[in-house]
């Protein structure tokens, strides 16, 4: 496996980060170095290794209501609100 070409700006876009040109250059070189280190995994044979460990039976929640937050508490951290709705710039599809 060769070191993949990492387009930092593209990936940052997926993560909703906008980077300065400086950050882009710096992260590009740092991340390629890190990815080069990660490439070493390619040499480990994992043919029949299961990807996840066998599951335990998790405890599932019973369908019984529990109290919600008050509207006031729910909105107490909201940076912008009106009429008990949380406001954002207009969503356009």
């Amino acid at each position, binding site marked *: 496996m060769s070191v993949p070409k990492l387009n930092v700006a593209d990936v940052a876009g997926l993560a909703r980060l906008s980077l300065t040109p400086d950050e882009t250059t710096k992260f590009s070189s740092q991340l390629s170095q890190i990815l080069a280190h990660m490439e070493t995994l390619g040499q480990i044979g994992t043919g029949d290794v299961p990807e996840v460990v066998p*599951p335990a039976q998790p405890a599932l*929640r019973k*369908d019984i209501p529990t109290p919600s937050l008050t509207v006031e508490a729910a909105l107490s951290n909201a940076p912008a609100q009106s009429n008990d709705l949380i406001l954002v710039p207009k969503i356009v599809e």
Partner: protein
Amino acid sequence: MSSSGNWEAVIGLEVHVQLRTQTKMFCGCINQYGGAPNSQVCPVCLGMPGSLPAPNEEAIRRTILTGLMFGCRIANVARFDRKNYFYPDMPKNYQISQFDDPLCAGGAVGLDPFLFPKDLQETDEAKAKRSIRLTRIHLEEDVAKSFHYEERSGIDFNRAGTPLMEIVSEADLRTAGEAFAFLGSLRQVLLSGNVSDADMEKGQMRCDVNVSVRPVGQKEFGTKVELKNLNSISGVRRALVYEIARQIAAVEKGEAIQHETRRWDDEAGATFTMRTKEKAHDYRYFPEPDLLPVRTDQGLRAAAESGLPELPAALQDRLMRENGVTAYQASVLAADRILCTYYEKAALGTQHKAVVANWILNDFLATQPEPASSPVRPEFFGELADLVAGGTINSAQAKKVFAELMANPSSPKALVEKLGLAQISDASALGVYCDEAIAANPRSVEDYRAGKGNAINALKGFVMKKSQGKANPAQVDEILKAKLSA
């Protein structure tokens, strides 16, 4: 449905169905429509830092039940995955969904001929009883509801995190009518299992459509278009009729179909470009690390199995075979579980089950469309049918009793008495009436004896009039004949 015989449409549906549960998918907030904005939210469904999902057992059970009803394979071990994308209606900016190991895979939906649009029910496509394969059914969380203003949007998170089933069909559908019947048939089964109210108009069932066209006989699919904003089953049909015609017209003109998402405008009756798909989304699915895989083979599957209802197709069969109702009536009853339960209760105590079906489906529903809340006890219909069949009242009287039953519900027997309607079946009393009739109508007697069989009707009419309509007509007939031939 195609406007030209040389083209066929290829249609696949993705249907999102809100599950009926007490609480949300991953928290204990109530799952209920219509609360004040942001009054049914907690740290979990608001995606607060540090909160974690706790899966709702009942939602999982209902999804498995749905899978069982459609003949899906149920995964022994299912997993939840994160689907990553940013959107303000999604609190965590990832949706907990299922990707690699959904709860249900495969299965099929049989198209009920009577769930095609009325105008297509006599066509071959409706009678074909096709079966449409399902790809999968998985469980995920719903997003919040947004309201759009001039410059901003406001978000109410009450719906965020409510349990949602995604049912994905194979691209097996070929016509708009089939898509209509698919949604109706799907809904019928969902209702029978009581997993959802599945009302498209209320957003409890939401449908995205993928549609393309290709020359008949071609194997490859054409370029598909996704249709959004479909808010009713008939809307899906209209949108498809329009879109298929649009695509055929375009390719016949030599134009290429754009790979895009189009919005159905119900008022305009047309679809419009919403966005073109320049780049596929990269959802970066990966297993949800906050949740252990779900084992269904240690009780969950068995619990779902024990809740399996009689499926609509089997129910229709049984109603036709055992109760003698028509195929159409059976389909109507199977489509409405509440009505059907009411009917079955009504028919339970009588031999005359088909008669009861007629009463309920024709006369009763016209005045009382909500049988569940009707004050008319279902047993009354059986009683009424028995009164007619047993000769206590005749069918004309039965209509009077029925009207009274709707107005002042009480036992038909009591109503017959109250209205003074009981039929006179006492042979000696009827004999007196018959003697009077013979004495009063010598002409008719003569005619009858001369071989004019119809002449007896005048005598019968005389008896009915004398008895104020209470005489048992069958008995009167017998007595008159006996007396006249004596």
